[in-house]
């Protein structure tokens, strides 16, 4: 493959991100028009931005790779990733928006009136963010290695460099528009090549004629997943989405709770459309590129398939498009997470100054870079699934019970987060020590028992420490659950 293609695609995406970040706001809004409604973000835009930030390397590369490996069982991942938003819509989006808290630590501190809970939550949020950035960087390493032949470390370093530069230089000013652009970039990057590939298959006269005959057999001969694995995975993905640090902030861009709900509805649609394409890649890959599964390169399927099936200059161009989309995925998710983490770290460690925010941004990008360079890339969708399991066992119980249960106490929240974190964390460590082949399924997919355990501990400890229910509880709960005045948008 032509190495220039990969580099050019990466450079183009980075440049477009930076340019929209710096100038997007300036182009559209400089007049003296005070009409606030024209300045709010329409639900469509905001939904695209949420999609752009949410669809990570796991969705772009990992899902197709997993379908190549394990067939229809892997379809639970896109189902879970999408349905998580349904949970968000039903249980969290509107109340949290009304709380006035911008980050999860802010929310827990306000709800439980306790600095200690804030510290523990901050710690967990930072941990989750770092764990979530690592697979993005693994994806970048893979993409650079496959498409340009450069050493793998170049990819993560480049992604972290671009993210740090745009955040520190203030390029995230019109972050909503950047992220919305990223969603449509990712969708185009997957949709256009697949159309061409299907045309080539249907035509039968081009390069596709020289392809090997479709091998319908299961290329890896993996056993299908049992009901335990599927339930556990769905628990992780459904509950994990609730606590992701970069997802919640987006809802404040909506002018009111009603449009926040509409946004979530559109997000559901956008995600469903998006996941059609990785699924199609996976199925095509199973038919035409089963060797990738055997050589352990399943995650590179999306990057390699267009070149294999079309070939020539057209193939190179389509590959460039896919690479651009992949880097869009790494950049958007990483920058969204870095901005959220930097907000939390700068407030808790550096006292919230502008300089502190920049420093925190660099810290929150550098640590995962260190971890990523020391670890090996596992299956992307699987490692992101584990991060979801961790979030579901730590942040999710506190968030859900905090919104819907009056009896939650600070002691219960801390006990629940620590229990969930220790259980899920040790399952993750045990899984990586044992290796994929030796890990029993209850350790590989821990969410089905760690999430209930965390909920149970939170509730029991809260019951035991009934006297610690904060005095501000009633006021805050009223605020969470009564409709807010609409943001003044009419003139």
């Amino acid at each position, binding site marked *: 493959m032509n190495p220039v293609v990969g580099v050019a695609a990466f450079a183009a995406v980075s440049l477009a991100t930076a340019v929209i970040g710096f100038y997007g706001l300036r182009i559209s*809004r400089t007049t003296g028009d005070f009409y606030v409604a024209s300045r709010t973000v329409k639900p469509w835009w905001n939904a695209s931005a949420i999609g752009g930030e949410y669809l990570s390397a796991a969705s772009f590369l990992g899902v197709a790779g997993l379908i190549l490996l394990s067939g229809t069982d892997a379809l639970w991942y896109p189902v879970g990733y999408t349905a998580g938003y349904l949970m968000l819509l039903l249980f969290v989006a509107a109340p949290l928006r009304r709380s*006035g808290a911008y980050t999860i630590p802010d929310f827990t501190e306000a709800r439980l009136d306790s600095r200690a809970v804030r510290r523990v939550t901050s710690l967990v949020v930072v941990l989750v963010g770092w764990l979530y950035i690592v697979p993005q960087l693994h994806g970048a390493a893979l993409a650079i290695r496959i498409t340009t032949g450069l050493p793998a470390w170049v990819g993560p370093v480049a992604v972290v460099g671009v993210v740090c530069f745009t955040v520190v230089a203030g390029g995230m000013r019109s972050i909503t528009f950047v992220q919305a652009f990223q969603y449509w970039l990712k969708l185009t990057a997957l949709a256009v090549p697949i159309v061409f590939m299907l045309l080539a298959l249907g035509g039968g006269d081009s390069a596709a004629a020289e392809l090997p005959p479709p091998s319908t057999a299961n290329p890896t001969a993996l056993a299908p997943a049992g009901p335990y694995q599927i339930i556990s995975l769905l628990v992780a993905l459904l509950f994990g989405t609730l606590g992701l640090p970069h997802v919640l902030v987006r809802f404040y861009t909506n002018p009111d709770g009603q449009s926040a709900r509409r946004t979530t509805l559109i997000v559901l649609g956008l995600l469903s459309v998006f996941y059609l394409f990785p699924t199609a890649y996976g199925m095509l890959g199973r038919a035409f590129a089963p060797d990738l599964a055997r050589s352990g390169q399943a995650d590179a399927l999306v990057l390699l398939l267009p070149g294999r099936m079309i070939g020539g200059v057209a193939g190179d161009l389509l590959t460039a498009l896919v690479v651009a989309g992949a880097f869009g995925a790494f950049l958007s998710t990483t920058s969204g997470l870095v*901005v959220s983490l930097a907000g939390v770290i700068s407030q808790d460690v550096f006292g919230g100054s502008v300089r502190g925010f920049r420093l925190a941004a660099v810290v929150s990008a550098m640590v995962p870079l260190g971890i990523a360079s020391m670890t090996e890339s596992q299956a992307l969708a699987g490692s992101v699934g584990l991060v979801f399991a961790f979030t579901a066992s730590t942040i999710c119980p506190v968030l859900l019970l905090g919104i819907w249960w009056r009896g939650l106490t600070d002691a219960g929240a801390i006990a629940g987060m620590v229990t969930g974190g220790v259980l899920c964390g040790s399952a993750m460590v045990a899984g990586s020590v044992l290796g994929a082949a030796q890990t029993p399924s209850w350790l590989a997919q821990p969410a089905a028992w760690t999430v209930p355990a965390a909920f149970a501990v939170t509730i029991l400890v809260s019951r035991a420490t009934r006297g610690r229910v904060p005095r501000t509880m009633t006021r805050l709960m009223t605020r969470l659950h009564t409709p807010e005045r609409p943001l003044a948008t009419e003139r």
Partner: protein
Amino acid sequence: MPDSPLLTAAAVAVIALAIAAVVAVGLKVLRSFRDLGTDAERATYQTLHAASRAGQHLRTGLNPAGAAKASKQLRSLLGCDALAITDTTGVLAWDGAGEELKPALMGLASKVFEGGHLAVIPAGELQLLAAGDGGVTLAPEVERAVVIAPIKTGARVVGVVAAFAPAAGAGLVRATGEVADWVATQVELAELDASRTLLMEAEVRALRAQISPHFIYNSLNAIASFINTDPVRARELVVEFADFTRYSFRRHGDFTTLAEELRCIDRYLLLERARFGDRVQVSLRIAPEVLSTVIPFLSLQPLVENAVRHGLEAKEGPGHISITANDSGAFAEVTIEDDGVGMDPDQLRSVLAGHSDGDHVGLRNVDARLRQVYGDENGLVIETAPGEGTLITMRVPKSQPRHDA
């Protein structure tokens, strides 16, 4: 386990840290024993220490939680069997033995509440009184004397301290009286704290929402000039003026959203433009992410008014005001810039410090409120020089769960 040098190094580091911690704690304990000196010094120290610990707990006033913690310290101070603290309505805390007396205590103390003088109930009478007042029957071995001393703030008795001991010696009686007086001082301090908080709130309220009388006068004059020449516009302006005053004079809430404040500024500028015509040019760049940020009520409008009044009014030819709002990490950053005549930094400094009543009272008002609500590090930042225009930056945390817009 694999013998990697990294693991060995980590283990050595952990062990070294543990040893260092143990040595440091040991040294500290040793030193505290060595430094305490004579018995008298130690007794003084212990008394003062107990008093200061109890004082901390009482600083929130007479409430069950604080009183419960303080009563432990005070009992060790007096060396009595049991110690109780009450307010005027009931027993707040009981530390030590004989809790079956609790229902009777308010009855026993009724004379103290009435007269405001210390009362001593000798050992023999407690049984009878308890049975009579509170209907409490005591086991024969519960045989104690009680010293009940009033907690007086000013002339008012707000509670009592009751000390239970086998015998009420002169020492215990005097000491209990002193402890009650000391508790009274703490309660007074707590009241002082509470009234200081109230004062701060009143100050914020007084600072809030002062739209300038000049503006009302000028606007009405400007509208009047249109009544004959352009009645339609005059009518529109009156409606805008009415809406502006409705927002500015609203009574509820000390906070609003950036979007609402911008709308208020829009009306304000519309009225100013009626007066100045095209001399006022405004450009606006607002990040949609911060529109719903909560800010103090009428905190931006005075800044824009300052830009119009002191930046452009005094200047010849058209003037330009630019308003931006940006997402900056955990904060929303709002800037207001004009290219007018600027200000003298020294004079501005003295106005902001409250030393002189310059024309920039609006700025001082906003600055004081921001500092009051968000802390001293989040006051206004003003960059200006004579003839160079003015740039005002305001930073507000986005997360304010305690403030309702």
